[in-house]
C-alpha cells in the first residue's frame, strides 16, 4: 500500500526550505524538498501517502497554480500553504480550493506539526474513502448490462413484476438476475442497496 507518508516541501528560499526539512526530519517525518513547482512536478512521487507544504509565492507558477494543476490531474495530496505575507484574499482562495491550512511565516514548531498531522490524517481518510469507493466501483463494474437495468429500477423502488413488464421478461428471470446483482454488489437488503447507490453517485463527483 502507500506505506510511510512523505512530506513534500516546496519553497524557493533555500535556507527556509532547509530549515523546514531539518525540523520535520528531526520530528521523524520522511521529507523531500523542491525549489519550484516545476521541480515538484518533474519528480515522480507515485501514489505514496503524504502531504504538500507549499509556499504561495514561487518563481514561475505559484503555489496556488500548483494546487489547481494537481487537482485537475486527480492528485489528491492535501496542501498546507506557507506564506511570508498572507493577505485575506489569497488565504480565502487557497482554503476554498481545499487547502488544509494556511500558515504565515515564521511558523512555530507546534503549529507546523499540527498542520502536517491534520494534512496526513486527511490524506489517510481520503485514501480510505477512495479505497472504499474504488472497491464499490469495481463491484458495480462487474454487473452485466441486464443487471444494471434491474439495479436502476430496484433503486427507483419498482416491484419485480413492474420490472418484468418493462423489460419484457418473466418475473422469475427478474428475481434470478436481481439475486445475482445483490450478490455481486455484496449487499443483502434493498436498504443497503439504496445506501450503496448513494455512495456511488457521490464518489463520481470530484
Amino acid at each position, binding site marked *: 500500500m502507500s506505506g510511510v507518508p512523505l512530506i513534500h516541501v516546496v519553497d524557493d*528560499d533555500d*535556507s*527556509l526550505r*532547509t*530549515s*523546514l526539512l*531539518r*525540523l520535520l526530519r*528531526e*520530528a521523524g517525518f520522511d521529507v523531500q524538498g523542491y525549489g519550484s513547482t516545476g521541480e515538484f512536478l518533474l519528480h515522480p512521487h507515485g501514489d505514496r501517502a503524504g502531504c504538500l507544504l507549499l509556499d504561495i*509565492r514561487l*518563481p514561475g507558477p*505559484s503555489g496556488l497554480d500548483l494546487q489547481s494543476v494537481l487537482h485537475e490531474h486527480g492528485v489528491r495530496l492535501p496542501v498546507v500553504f*506557507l506564506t*511570508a*505575507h498572507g*493577505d485575506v484574499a489569497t488565504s480565502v482562495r487557497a482554503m476554498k480550493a481545499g487547502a488544509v491550512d494556511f500558515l*504565515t*511565516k*515564521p*511558523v*512555530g*514548531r507546534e503549529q*507546523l506539526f499540527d498542520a502536517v498531522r491534520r494534512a496526513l490524517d486527511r490524506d489517510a481518510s481520503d485514501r480510505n474513502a477512495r479505497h472504499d469507493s474504488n472497491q464499490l466501483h469495481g463491484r458495480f463494474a462487474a454487473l452485466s448490462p441486464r443487471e444494471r437495468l434491474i439495479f436502476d429500477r430496484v433503486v427507483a423502488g419498482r416491484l419485480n413484476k413492474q420490472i418484468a413488464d418493462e423489460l419484457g421478461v418473466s418475473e422469475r428471470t427478474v428475481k434470478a438476475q436481481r439475486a445475482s446483482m445483490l450478490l455481486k454488489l455484496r449487499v443483502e437488503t434493498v436498504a443497503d442497496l439504496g445506501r450503496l447507490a448513494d455512495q456511488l453517485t457521490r464518489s463520481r463527483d470530484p
Partner: protein
Amino acid sequence: MKARWSLQRSGRGTVVSLIALLSVHAFAEQQTRNVLALYANARTLPANIEADHGLRAALADTQARHVEVYSEFLDVPRFSGPSYAHTVATFLGNKYAEHPPDVIFIGGSDALAFALVNRSLMFPTVPMVHAGVPTPFLKSLGKLPADVIGDPMEVDSLRTIELAFRLHPKATQLILVTGAGDFGKAWETRLRDEAPRFPSRATPHFFAKMPTETLRERLAALTGDAVVFTPGYFIDGDGHGTTPHDAATFVASIAAAPVYGPYATFIDTGVVGGYAPNFYEIAYQAGGYVNAVLDGADPASMSSTYSTPTALNIDWRQVERWGIEPNMIPKDAYIQFREPSLFEAHRVEVFTAAGVIVLQSALIISMFVERRRRHAAERLLETRGLELAHTSRVAIAGELTASIAHEINQPLGAILSNADTGELILESDADRRDDLRAIFADIRRDDLRASEVIRRLRTLLDNHQYERAPFQINDVVSDVSSILSVEARRRGMMLDIPRSSADATVVGDRIQITQVLINLVLNAMDAVCDLPEERRWVVVSTHVDGDRVTVEVLDRGNGIAPEHLPQLFDSFFTTKLKGMGLGLSIARTLVTTHGGRIWAENRTAGGAIFRVELPVLTSAQGAANSA
C-alpha cells in the same frame, strides 16, 4: 528643432511698444478683452519687440473693442528647468486671476512647450495662438489640443541658396554643411530633396556629419568657385553638442568661401545672410487668429495651413569682405552693420533712446522685484521639497510592505525552524554538536540577511538632511535592483536591470536619486501589472554621454495618453486610483536640485520611457573637490 525668437534688427520697435504699453490705460473704461502674450525669451530681444508690434497692429485692426495686451517673458535660456517653469506658471496663474486672458498668444517654441506642459496651472480652458514655432518642432509635439492654433514657421533654404548664387555669379560649387542627430538628419534629407531645384550651375557637395577636423580642412581648402550653406547643427560629426548659432560661427570662421544660413540668429556669426522668418509679419498673422477668437470663432474650427513670411537679412561687413556687388542685393533686405546709414536711418531713435533708458530702468527694477519673489518661492519649494521627499519615501515603503514582509519573514521563518530543531536535538540527549553547529551557523546567516533588509529600509526612510557627496550611479541602480526585485517577483513580472558597463560619478544625495529611480520603476511596474505576461517587463539602463549620465526606465505598457504628457510631472496629477500624484512632481524637484532633468515620452514600439539625466562629475571637478 528649437529656433528661438532671435536677434534681428536694432530696437526700432522698442519705443513704439513701450508707448503702446503706457497708453493702453487711456482706454481702460471701454469694454476690455485681455490677451496674455507669453514670449520664450527676454523682454528686450528685438524679435520679441517686433512680434509685440505686429501683434498690436493686428489687434488694432478691429476698432470695435479695446484689447489689453499683457506681456510676459520666460527669459529662456537664461532661466529654465521644470521647477522654474512650475514656479512661473503658478505665478502667472495667480497674477492674472483677476484679469483672466481671453486668448493666450505664444511666441516661440520654448513658450509653447512651457504653456502646454503647465497649462493646468494657468487658464487650462483659454485658447492659445502660437507664432514663431518652426514646423519640425510643431511636428515633434504631435497633435496639439484643438484650442491651440497657429501657423508653423517655415524656414526658406532654397531661396537663400538661390540668393547666394545670384550674389556670387562665379560660384559653381555648393557646399552643404549639416551635423548629426535628428536636426542634422532632417536638414540633410530636406536639402537632398531640394537639390533638383538648386540653381542649374550649382554642384552640391554634402558635408554631412563630417568629423570636426575633416570639416575644418575641407572648408579651409575651398576656393573662389564655392559658396557654403549651413543650417548649423546641435550635434557635430564627432557627437559633441553645440548650438546652430555656434556651429554657424565655427563654419563661417573656417570657410574660405562665403557662408549663408537660413536663420536670423546667424547674422553676426560671420555668415553673409539668408532668408529668415520675419517676426513682425508672423505676429501680425497670428494676431488675425487672436482677433477671430475674440470675435467668438471656435478655435477648433480654424485650420492653420499657412506658413509664415520670411525676410532677408544681410551682414554688410560680409558683403564687403566677399566683394559682393551691392546692386545685386534685393531692395527689401534688412542690411545690418552698415554703420553710417544705420545711424542716419535711425537718428530719431538715438534721441529717444535716452527716454527709453529711463523707462527701461523702471522695467529692470520691476524685473528685479519679480526675480526676488521668484527666488523666494523657489527656496520655499526646496525646503518643502525635502519634507515631501521624505513623505514620498514613506509612501514607497508602504507600497513595498508586501515584499518587505516577505524578505524579512523568510529569514525569520528559517531562524524559528532552526531554533525548534535545535531544541528537539537537545531533548534527544544525543551528542550531536556538529548538527547544532550547522544550525547555529544558519541562524546567524539568516539573522544577518534580515538585518540587511532592515538596514536598507531604514536608509530609505530616515528623515535625513540633504547630503552632497560623490557616488557611483551604478551603485544606486543596483540598490534599486535589490530593493525592488522581490516586489517584481511578487507581481509576477520581469524587472531587467543589467549591470551596466557605463558608470559615472554623480555629486548629490544618493538616497534622493535612489528614491527617484524607485519611483519611476514602481510606476512602470504599475503600468504593466495587469497586462499579459510577455508585456509585464521593465528595463532600467544607464548611458553616459560626455558630461551627462542618463538612466532610462522603460516599460511595455500602454504608454502615456498624449493629453497626460504635459501634466505628468505636475503636483496632484495622477491617473492611479490610489495615487496622490506627488511622486513624479517630487522626482522632478529632486532631479532639478541635482542640476539634472527628467522627462517622459512614449516608445514607438509601445510603452513609455522615463529618463533621468544628471551631470557627471568630471575628473577635473573631482580633483578640485578633493583638493
